[in-house]
């Protein structure tokens, strides 16, 4: 048994300690907003936060999350940065197929939580681990800047 705090709720999961957190979230907890893309931390679709830090859940054993706060796309709207990012995503109509966008939003939220006004270089550094096959990168960049501006005004 592994005990996790996911989006503020304590969850007890019967899983081997080396099971990737991704599959515990999806197959055990049915939190399907976190996506499977590559399985080797190359695409960022599975990004979640562990104690506020972005991690690739496909390459994070569930044992590494024990005792930590796990935040997923289903819970990120409850944070100040996450709320601003999601609102900006909607204003900018960012998603196309949408499959990578949970991971993009999780990476962007972690960036904004740390940097109130990220530069282009900051955005490149924080977001280049997240692949978007539909090519929404320019809209993601614009939405992050808008989220930063709106959060500052809030």
């Amino acid at each position, binding site marked *: 048994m592994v005990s996790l705090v996911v989006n503020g709720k304590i969850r007890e999961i019967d899983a081997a300690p080396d099971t990737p957190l991704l599959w515990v979230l999806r197959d055990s907890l049915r939190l399907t907003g976190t996506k499977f893309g590559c399985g080797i931390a190359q*695409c960022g679709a599975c990004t979640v936060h562990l104690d506020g830090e972005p991690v690739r859940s496909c390459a994070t054993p569930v044992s590494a999350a024990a005792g930590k706060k796990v935040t997923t796309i*289903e819970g990120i709207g409850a944070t100040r940065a996450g709320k601003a990012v999601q609102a900006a995503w909607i204003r900018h109509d960012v998603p*196309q197929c949408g*499959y990578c966008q949970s991971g993009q939003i999780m990476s962007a939220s972690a960036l904004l939580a740390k940097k109130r006004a990220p530069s282009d270089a900051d*955005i*490149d550094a924080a977001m280049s681990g997240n692949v978007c096959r*539909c090519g929404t990168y*320019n809209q993601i960049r614009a939405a992050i800047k808008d989220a930063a501006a709106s959060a500052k005004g809030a």
Partner: protein
Amino acid sequence: MRAKPMNASRREFLKASAMAGGGLIVGFTLPGATRLAQGAAKEARMSAYLRIAPNNEITVVCGLSEMGQGVHTAIPMLVAEELDADWSRVRVEQAGVDQAFANPIFGMQATGGSTSVRGHWEPMRKAGATARAMLIAAAAEIWKADPAECRTERGMVIHASGKKLSYGQLADKAAKLAPPKDVKLKDPTQFNLLGKSGTQRLDTVAKSTGKAKFGLDVYLPGMLTAVIAYPPVPGGKAASVNDAKAKAVPGVRRVVQIPSGVAVLADGYWAAKLGRDALEIQWDHGANASLSSEGISKMLSAGAAAGGAVGRNEGDAKAETPAKKIEAEYEAPYLSHSCMEPLNCTAWVRKDGVEIWAGTQSQGPAQGILAQVAGVAPGKVKVNTMYLGGGFGRRFAPDPVIGATVLSKITGKPVKLVYSREDDTRGYFYRPASVTRMTGGVDADGRATLFTASVACPSIMEGSHFMKLPPDGVDEFGVEGIRDCPYDIPNLRVEYSRQEPGGIQVWFWRSVGHSQNSFFLESFIDELAYAAGKDPFEFRRSLLGKQPRCKGALELAAEKAGWSKPLPAGVHRGIAVVFSFGSWCAQVAEVSVAADGAPKVHRVVAAVDCGMTVNPDIVRRQIESAIVYGLTAALYGKITFKDGRVEQSNFHDYRMLRMNEMPKVEVHIVPSTEAPGGIGEPGTPPIAPAVANAMFAATGKRIRKLPLLG
């Protein structure tokens, strides 16, 4: 992807009926096909295109698959425009599999070939206009007024006297009326929604909150998750299997051999994956164990040198003796689509039929195929279309839906078949590799007088299993983008030689044949411009006198890019223009090249003439998306073979363009009153040649083999 167009007259007779809980349904009754599709008894059920509820909510039912291209917004906009609906009350619902939703261009329910708006521009507007006419008639009856005294606006019928009734208030009454046989559609100058910016996508909120449900997000009670160990060489099969260790993995329930490989079924993906890792399989590699990319290149090159079936022949290319002649061989590799969502399908074969849940581009064909697989009537196959995490043509292929259905039939349980990223990358259905030899010539004044192309590549038509090579032996996907060369060159000849290396399944990849042929043609035209001593833009322009829309797109891109204006030191421009899927797209790429030869694309300026638009914001995003897709392939994309095996496996060795490599993109739309063209694909073909041409401008070195980074 072409098939017989369906009989358009079937759509001309829209039907109406009342909703169970009150309200109006406008739809379409197709007795035979509907019964077939729904398994209903004798009475034909009406397939709804549109429902208007008493609470004023308007639901547009869309038979097309949403894979990012925005069709779940565009189709409702077509209906809403003619209905004069209140857009804020419009929602979209995915249709099941139903011949009433056959794509008018294909004659089957499927999404691809950039056909959705082209095929539905009129029928969906007609559905909206029909409902509007019935709502007006209902209001006129209530008011005992002449319908001509009534107008509509934002979900209301308004009488000249100022009286108003909402569509929801009128829906019950309208449902009792007969739909008009003929309705007049708006003149485009009357459009309020179509062609205007500012209408947001209907799927944005679900896709920004993790709530959108893709194929992989389907969970059914008692469901098993399957992964398959596939033969590592095309055409191979398992000679012997020791599954003892796999079955010992906690959570693994079954190991079964099926035609495509050895499947491990388990409680969840991770157990299935660990089970597969533990399989001990001796493979019989079959005939293709020595397949190599070097061998494939040689085979294609020999085919291109030998020539083949004649696809176009004007003037006398063989007799022409130009003042200056150039000749070159170009090559493009196999490519994987690599959708963000790995391929998958959930199937449940029950006594009463088959039900699948999948992000598929081809509901209609899947219904027929799965009926055969499961041994049931087509009407017993139900398809639940989920959001597609990318499609690009790959989700037109039937392999995941067949695999899941076979496994559910064997186990009697619902089965979710999942491709790992490695399975997806190595799962074939590739854009074909191609080698093309071209010759070109100019006269003493630098005017082009000769162009020939000899294309050698596998046949998608034959590989598709739903088309055949035409009698002339020319695969239309093998030569598209080169046979339709828009330039006015008097002596022009295109040949096609079918070559099929090692049984590699080829398939439709965003923009299909144009994806490689436009690179060949637009690079070679650039070579010809330099041979003629002409500016590449002016040279193209001079050959497009008979192609005003092509020339218009080219000129707009050049103008917006400031073609003749100076650039920062080290930055160079390349240009290309391509007609595909009913639209013209020209692009100018601004590129610098590092000392090691690696290009950096700084900015892309695109101009597109796609006729009238539905949603210009989505049009611009689709062109930008297509540029990223094409640029990724141009820079990095290649699937290669060694000892019969695919060498690439995941994103570390099949590279994707990332945020830090993303150029600025500007998209300009040519104002037009012409019929709509396609938009999902036309942005992809021009980017590879535009970048390659800019690299030549920068370095003087012509790259004739993709990818550009080698």
